[in-house]
């Protein structure tokens, strides 16, 4: 749905994007995570060409945006919704007026506009609040208005620029739940950038980690979890890094109640002590990560057994 390749962008001497490729599949929620200054914000702005990349191409829904300019680009942008960290609502307009704005831009007639605005506000759970002013709303409600506005043009893609970063944890969860619902119900493809790992954990199907203007790692989260040495896995499961020498880190997917650990101890002549670990509920299902110290004569065959059982075994 979104295909970016070879994106480069620099401001003066600062390189913001240093050859970035991105592939977002139809209907998925794709999260780009990284610290501030990693280039994720520039990347997002390059997708709808708010920033024009110095090099590289961006294709959204089969249309190469980097080949467009002026009016054609404006038309193409109407098929891409965007929500913002600080909501970016017009304070001079009511809630309904804000949602109507993109419809006015598209030249939708007034009666049709009113009907559509009503529908959209209902969809985001703000039915009946159309007459309010944005400054009368809470942060979460403002973001809902932002989402309704972004959906006005029936976009195939929604870009989210740190949409939950200014919100408290409970509100963040409700906004993420709304995005997830829109993703499932409308088949909306969502590309979001965030610095919060929780966002990646709770809604994303795929992710990319950015640092220094480059993508360090990307792909479906389910696959990344099974990749040895994955940075994403390390970020999701906060265990002390680097792993102490001689320790073993086990990553397991599927039913977290499988008694693999006790099986190993019973089958092999090994002692096992747990150094740390946690289980996270990801969109791909539950994933556990356990750091253990394994000692005894049969340590090596025990690890082979764990591998056979489908666990990812990383030794330090």
């Amino acid at each position, binding site marked *: 749905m979104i295909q970016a390749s070879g994106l480069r962008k620099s401001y003066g001497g600062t390189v913001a994007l240093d050859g970035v490729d991105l592939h977002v599949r139809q209907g998925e929620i794709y999260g780009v995570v990284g610290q501030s200054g990693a280039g994720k914000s520039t990347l997002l702005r390059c997708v*709808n060409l708010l920033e024009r990349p110095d090099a590289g191409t961006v294709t959204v829904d089969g249309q190469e945006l980097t080949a467009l300019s002026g009016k054609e680009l404006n038309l193409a*942008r109407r098929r891409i919704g965007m929500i913002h960290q*600080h909501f970016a609502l*017009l304070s001079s307009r009511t809630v309904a007026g804000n949602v109507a704005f993109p419809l006015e831009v598209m030249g939708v007639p007034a009666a049709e506009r009113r009907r559509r605005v009503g529908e959209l506000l209902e969809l985001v759970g703000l039915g009946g609040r159309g007459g309010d002013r944005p400054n009368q709303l809470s942060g979460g409600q403002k973001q809902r208005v932002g989402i309704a506005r972004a959906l006005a043009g029936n976009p195939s893609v929604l870009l989210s620029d740190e949409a939950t970063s200014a919100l408290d944890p409970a509100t963040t969860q409700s906004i993420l739940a709304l995005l997830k619902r829109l993703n499932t119900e409308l088949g909306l493809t969502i590309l979001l950038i965030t610095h919060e790992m929780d966002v990646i954990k709770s809604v994303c199907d795929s992710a990319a980690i950015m640092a220094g203007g480059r993508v360090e790692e990307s792909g479906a989260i389910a696959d990344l979890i099974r990749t040895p040495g994955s940075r994403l896995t390390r970020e999701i499961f906060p265990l002390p890094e680097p792993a102490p020498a001689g320790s073993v880190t086990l990553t397991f997917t599927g039913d977290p109640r499988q008694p693999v650990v006790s099986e190993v101890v019973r089958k092999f002549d090994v002692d096992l002590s747990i150094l740390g670990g946690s289980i996270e509920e990801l969109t791909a299902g539950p994933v556990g990560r356990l750091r253990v110290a394994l000692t005894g004569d049969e340590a090596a065959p025990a690890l082979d057994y764990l591998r056979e059982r489908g666990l990812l075994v990383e030794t330090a």
Partner: protein
Amino acid sequence: MTWDEMVPLLGEATWQTALMVAWSTLFTVLLGLPLGVALVVFDRGGLRPMPVLKSALGMVVNVGRSLPFIVLMIAIIPFTRLVVGTTIGTAAVVVPLTVGAVPFFARLVETALREVDRDVVQAAQAMGAGRTTIVRKVLLPEALPGIVAGVTVTVVALIGYTAMAGTIGGGGLGDLAVRYGYMRFETEIMIATVVVLVVIVQIMQSLGDLVARRLSHK
């Protein structure tokens, strides 16, 4: 001078001042608003960056702002004759008043427009809005409270400028104060003029503040 003599004089002068301020405010807004918009739109990082044009406009504005009003009024007499066909009287004063206030107001408009959240403009661009739409539907409405505040400041400044209108026969309260209060030592007239001016400025400022507050939903 008796009260009965003073009232018609004050009445006429107030009316002349009101006329001069009203007309020049109208023309100032009509000319200064687009100029202020141009200063923002053509700026580096604006909606349509044209740095050379923006610098040229900025220079013209600065020249206009660096001339004291009384100098400007005399200096542009040929231009005034060209526009209204005469160089004396109330109508002739509106021309230099407008020329003097346009650069001032344009800068105030520029400042008000720059206060508009960049995010909001970018959001509109992301929605595929063109430049004209962004100016009409985003920049101007969002900056409206600031623009109204700018109009208020301009009106008060124009009331000040009109004091010099007597020099070219424009009349008004300033002229009254100079001719009677200063040249003829009629202290009562001086005091009355001061009171009327203070009251007018207070009313204008309060009215402007009220409208700006009503329009603001920040």
